[in-house]
């Protein structure tokens, strides 16, 4: 039987295969859809933030980074965690507060962590991941290692001090860090133009003498190509890059939010550009997969997530001793 570590490593290395990339986009989509149902059932406690519509960014990032690179991302990161290789069992276990979760069920939906995959504990504080990713890059630079760090954050984070301070510091020190703004148009319940002085977050890179790109975050190939350029720049001493990926948050901010503030028809206008749809059409057009094969992959992933849910429903809750574990470093 494979260890958890081996399973996760394999999930990561497999991502060089375009078919596996599509499979894992389905995995994230169905995982997130099921979370919504589990929340309604009362099996997800507190809050949860799902990422349907942003799968191209999840998979694109995981497919281009090395396993020893570091990633800082936000409370909306089930997709990144799964893409980077965390098993759906370890992710769902955490979200449902079970001992099978990646940190034993004491973190919850906003706090997934997978050190062996380079995933820093995901951040529930907007913008906090940016300085910390810069710091990981500082360690790599100081030791002369060929590793990079990535911070992924939403458009809302571009208005917090940590964003500006981290971009400046990374630029001054030419740190091997990539800042990825997942601009899904809404910061919590507010639309971007009501909170933000620029239309394109990427424009702000110029203030920090930093190269930037604006990409279509719904298109996997664009995400991968852009990330490769930025990662290559960082690995060869060219310093940081700000990438702005234009995406759309299909769901509300959190589970309690039905997103009634969105203009009528906005979601529908994005759906034809759905990242899964775009990618499967590309693979079919290229002759890599047939329509039937895509349908089979989709069915398999749906069934696979159903099994993970059954498994997790029966997993134990942590005992009181978990409260006192890992507070102090020995």
């Amino acid at each position, binding site marked *: 039987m494979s260890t958890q570590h081996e399973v996760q490593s394999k999930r990561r290395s497999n991502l060089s295969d375009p078919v596996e990339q599509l499979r894992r986009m389905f995995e994230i989509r169905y995982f997130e859809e099921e979370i919504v149902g589990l929340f309604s059932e009362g099996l997800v406690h507190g809050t949860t933030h799902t990422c349907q519509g942003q799968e191209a960014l999840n998979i694109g990032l995981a497919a281009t980074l090395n396993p020893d690179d570091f990633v800082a991302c936000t409370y909306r990161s089930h997709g990144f965690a799964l893409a980077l290789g965390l098993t759906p069992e370890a992710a769902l276990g955490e979200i449902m507060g079970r001992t099978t979760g990646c940190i034993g069920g004491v973190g919850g939906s906003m706090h997934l962590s997978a050190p062996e995959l380079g995933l*820093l504990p995901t951040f529930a504080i907007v913008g906090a991941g940016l300085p910390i*990713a810069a710091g990981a890059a500082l*360690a790599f630079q100081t030791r002369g290692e060929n590793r990079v760090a990535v911070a992924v954050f939403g458009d809302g984070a571009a208005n917090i001090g*940590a964003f500006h301070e981290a971009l400046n510091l990374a630029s001054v020190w030419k740190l091997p860090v990539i800042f990825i703004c997942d601009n899904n148009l809404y910061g919590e319940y507010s639309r971007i133009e009501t909170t933000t002085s620029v239309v394109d977050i990427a424009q702000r890179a110029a203030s920090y003498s930093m190269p930037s790109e604006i990409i279509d975050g719904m298109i996997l190939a664009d995400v991968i190509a852009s990330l490769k350029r930025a990662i290559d720049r960082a690995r060869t001493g060219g310093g940081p890059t700000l990438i702005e990926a234009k995406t759309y948050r299909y769901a509300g901010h959190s589970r309690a939010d039905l997103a009634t503030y969105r203009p009528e028809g906005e979601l529908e206008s994005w759906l034809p550009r759905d990242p899964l749809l775009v990618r499967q059409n590309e693979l079919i057009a290229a002759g890599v997969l047939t329509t039937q094969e895509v349908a089979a992959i989709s069915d398999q992933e749906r069934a696979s997530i159903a099994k993970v849910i059954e498994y997790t429903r029966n997993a134990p809750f942590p005992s009181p001793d978990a409260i006192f574990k*890992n507070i102090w470093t020995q």
Partner: protein
Amino acid sequence: MAQVRFRQAIALALADEMRKDASVMVFGEDVAHAEGPFKTSEGLLAEFGPLRVRDTPISEMAFTGAAVGAATAGMKPVIEIMFMEFMGVALDMVVTEAAKFHYLSGGEFTVPMVIRASVGAGGGFGLQHSQTLENWLVATPGLKVVVPSDIQSAYDLTRAAIRDAGPVAVLEPRALYGDRGPLIQREDGLLEIGKARIMREGNGITVVSMGQLVAKSIEALAGIDAEIIDLSTLVPWDQECVSASIKKTGRLVIVQEAPVSGGWGHEVLSLMVSKHFAELKAAPFIISAPNAPVPYGKDLEELYIPQPAYIKEQIAHYLSTNQVPTPWWTQRGLN
């Protein structure tokens, strides 16, 4: 024995750890080329070079966060917060990130970082550069907090903090930077984090103090049979040491620089009262600054900080009457 200043003891401790461990690095505002606004990083840039000793922008949130990231990725960063108040803009990184990463990674990530900050009044820096503010940090499981009170403890606690596997805040009383005295520059036998120091043994009363008020308490209590304890580590504080002393003396007084409300003195006092109620000969109390900002003028600032004469007067009254004395501001009808 070498005679050094308090600030030099810190620079020596940093250099000694940096020589021993290549993962130790130092950054903060003006710590490299200027060798620290208080000269606490003298010689470090020259010896260890610009990769390991860096000047940062005036961006506490960024460089404190960078320390969290660097520590998580295997370095042992020591950062300097020039004045404790500046930690206010970086507090998320200290209490919500650095102190929580170990827990949030199921014990897999460690954050061996040191946050040095200069604290306290006495320099005429005005109210936004003179507070101790250790109470910002004491309710954060996962973060250790130490406060040196003299040259040896500045050296020892700095090295001990760097060697600690988790995040440690070292709050340096700014008023002591210029003090000069002997230092044992040692590899082993350092003062330990979590251990209080008995500065003077005695049987009549237990006096617990910290930082720049330790020396003032020692001066104040000349000729009084007091046991003077330098708490030294605020989190986790040495309950055993204080308990043992109270069992012996039956009396407890806290001497604290910070304003009385919400200060560390209440933590020590309330726990000790709960534990030793029946053994106490009189109600314990706290000698502290008033609940007011630190005033600027020399005379008012001196009045604001508990001075030896005031500490002596308060404790003498307490010992002779077994009654808790009123603080100076109440005596004068000011508050």
